[in-house]
């Protein structure tokens, strides 16, 4: 069920970065992702794609990372788009109602297209 957590970062375009996460994202590993997103923001990157293809597990601590940053990111004309989520991981987002807040899309290409078309969710 579990494996070590890892984040690989790719800069897609000016202002867009892709974070590929793998393994288990829980209270133990959430600070690793938190640091990566924080680092992207400090570099002025506010358009972030998080690819979940190889993520096997997530707890509320993992979801909390996205919640902690999304307001600031949207205040800076950015967004967080989540891609390629396994159904068991998606079920956790759904239990908490997170699809109301985040765009969860099938592929990185769809997310890039949304950014290129300036399709961003706004703060309420």
């Amino acid at each position: 069920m579990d494996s070590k957590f890892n984040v690989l970062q790719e800069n897609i375009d000016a202002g867009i970065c892709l974070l590929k996460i793998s393994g288990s994202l829980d209270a133990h590993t959430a600070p690793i992702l938190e640091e990566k997103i924080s680092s992207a923001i400090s570099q002025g990157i506010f358009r972030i794609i998080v690819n979940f293809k190889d993520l096997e597990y997530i707890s509320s601590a993992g979801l909390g990372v996205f919640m902690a940053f999304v307001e600031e990111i949207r205040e800076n004309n950015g967004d967080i788009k989540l891609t390629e989520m396994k159904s068991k991981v998606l079920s956790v987002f759904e239990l908490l109602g997170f699809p109301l807040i985040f765009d969860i899309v099938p592929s990185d290409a769809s997310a890039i297209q949304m950014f290129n078309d300036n399709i961003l969710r706004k703060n309420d």
Partner: protein
Amino acid sequence: MIKNKIKNKTKKIVLSGELSGLEKARNLVYESALAFGFSENESFQIALAADEACTNIMKHSYHFDRSKKFTVEIKSHKKEFQISILDEGTSFNPNEVEMMDIMRRKQNKQKGGFGIFLITKIMDSIQYFPKSEGYPLNQLILKKTLE
């Protein structure tokens, strides 16, 4: 007969305030739930409920102190799967935890406080017995019935 014996066996793991113990706890719960007859997705969610309960103790009650221990026990009876978590930290009442207003939490940049809500969504019953003079451990009992 053999299957029933396996089902009725109590499994136990001792954890501390160290967050790296979460993986072992949820693996034990996941495997036990699967063996009991829950689907992979149900077992995944039951393991998540256990993870959330353990995380709360490690963080809020034990403040990540490795020297403080608590126990997770898994039992089953007929169609009922039960996780008991026994700790000696500060008592709290999970039923008094504020319910979710997700939009307000987003506005407040609130990254925590979702755990109890998830547990209530996943499990059929949550009972909490705070420690007392007669019994020195808090007991959180999570139950889910196999349908």
